[in-house]
């Protein structure tokens, strides 16, 4: 089990591998399951598999990961849904070796475009799920699968969450996605809880504490949420 969740997260340990390009297109070290979820959201554009890899002897980051690929070569048509790769060796210990392959057949510019879009999805996925978890006091949606007769669990909060995920799954340009998400989350800012949700999400996605995006009032109302990290 430890192999999937390395204790040392100072170097990337999770890679997003594109069978089409046959290279890693992004590396990260945060969370295995949110990485998989980000891959699902990105699969509307490019199918990616998540690789838990052993750090190679040379430094590996997002500036050079597209020169590397998993050592294992499995038929490129073997996968059509995001999952862990390679499934054939898991759960034995002998998996996760990368090998240096050099430039791929895909121009660097295209890989940068993938990185840009995927990077946005990953960041937005973390922002959304952390905000959801912080905001979920007494919300019963996690029981949904156990009581299918009440599915989908629907209220305005759930609808907003689903709409944001839909945007992340289907957006064409990053700016368009940012705008659409902002519109969804800023629809009910007259309610304190929603302002708090909005502020947290933006803080996590954009690194800004106060609501500050396009549709926001630059002067926060007097009951604007005060978050712990607002304080020095």
């Amino acid at each position: 089990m430890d192999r999937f969740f390395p204790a040392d997260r100072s170097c990337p340990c999770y890679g997003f591998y594109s069978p089409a390009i046959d290279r890693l297109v992004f590396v990260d070290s945060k969370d295995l399951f949110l990485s998989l979820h980000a891959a699902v959201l990105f699969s509307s554009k490019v199918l990616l598999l998540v690789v838990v890899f052993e750090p190679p002897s040379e430094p590996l980051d997002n500036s050079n990961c597209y020169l590397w690929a998993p050592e294992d070569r499995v038929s490129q048509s073997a996968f059509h849904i995001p999952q862990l790769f390679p499934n054939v060796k898991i759960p034995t210990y002998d998996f996760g070796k990368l090998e240096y392959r050099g430039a791929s057949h895909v121009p660097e510019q295209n890989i940068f475009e993938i990185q840009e879009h995927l990077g946005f999805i990953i960041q937005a996925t973390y922002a959304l799920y952390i905000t959801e978890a912080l905001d979920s006091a007494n919300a019963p949606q996690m029981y949904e699968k156990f009581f299918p007769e009440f599915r989908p669990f629907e209220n305005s909060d759930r609808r907003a969450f689903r709409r944001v995920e839909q945007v992340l799954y289907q957006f064409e340009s990053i700016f368009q996605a940012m705008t659409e998400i902002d519109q969804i989350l800023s629809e009910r800012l007259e309610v304190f809880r929603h302002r708090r949700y909005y502020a947290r999400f933006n803080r996590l996605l954009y690194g800004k504490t106060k609501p500050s995006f396009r549709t926001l009032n630059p002067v926060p109302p007097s009951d604007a949420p005060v978050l712990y990290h607002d304080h020095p």
Partner: protein
Amino acid sequence: MPQFYITITRDKAADAVRSQIYHRLPETGRYWLDLSRRFHPNTLTARKGRWTTPWPMVVHPQLAMPAYDPGFTGTFADISDQRACEIRDLVRQGRRVALYYSGGIDSTVCAVALLKNLTAEELKDVAFCCNINSAAENPAFFERHIRRRVTILDSNRTKYSDLIAQGYSPITADTGDDIFGTEQATQFYFSYPKLVDDLPGSSRARCGLQREQPQLMEQPYAHFEDLLIPYLSPPIDPSTPSAGCDRRVGEWVYHKIVHNIATSDVPIHSLHDFFWWIIFNLRFTHCSLRGPLFYYMGTDLKGAITKHIINWFNTPNYQRWSMVNNNNGQKICKPTATHYKWAARCYIHDFDHNRWYFNYKIKSVSLYSLIQDNYDAYGMMFGLDSDYQTHWLSAAPVQRLFEEGLQNFEG
């Protein structure tokens, strides 16, 4: 009675039958059985050229290969639009059609052609038979062109027989791979470095250098014999890749294919041609008939195959196009999976302008998601004879026929 179709699956039950007779068979009979570990299921039957099989075969009349016509100039886009117009004519005559749409390149070509060439009114008689995998395989296309625009039927619950009973003619894109050449080719290029690594010294150096040639796919296939034989060899134990491959079988089937090429009247020279020919000649029957055999549950299989089911890419013009467009980038533009079915990618992109799909779509197998609930049942299928009767290895007379054929197989 000769068979239109034969298959040997890797199913456990079929394995049990095979293991009972395997040790009694001559070498060539064993090789034929072993091939099912490399070409699963083993359904290799030729439409042209000499190709012996353990049981007498006949080419299905609707699946015959047209004559090679080097002067054929139709483009893929024109032929696809013409094909849609043929469907449009059927609709105008009062027929309803249902496209099995997987979201893959072949069925998306059909979808694009129909959406381009039929009016909104005519499209009311066209249903899209798909499932959650189809939507996820090309979500942008599903959202923009299918959802809320055409009638959707759930392909997991709607077999060919159900559609026919509802008055639809099912449309399948199942022979798209045959028109474009097999994915075995792109996977060969993908596996090339590993195949080279496994060669002995002198061959390794030569084949390694060949890979650097810009026109790799256009080189004579005979130059790659040292790589093609291991590539065509079945694994000794599929569950243990490190156990290696059975080179004798690979050698046997390679020379069998070469002999088939030599006795056909279609020019096959390059590596590209070689792989294209494997599917265009040897797998076309399988790709055409597997759908009706595995996904039709009615009692009139002959009627389903000959009257109701529309095989989109099985037309003389698509096949003529396929025969004169090798080695020009129309099928596999570059030796990578993202350049497979290039003319089809361009046709789709001209319509939907989705550069992600155009640049990064790779093949995924959709048929098995349709038949997985009944997959065990198909494991014992053996053949379809020319009287449209299916034969199953669970029956003793079929087991005898099976063994006799393999015993007498000349190879």
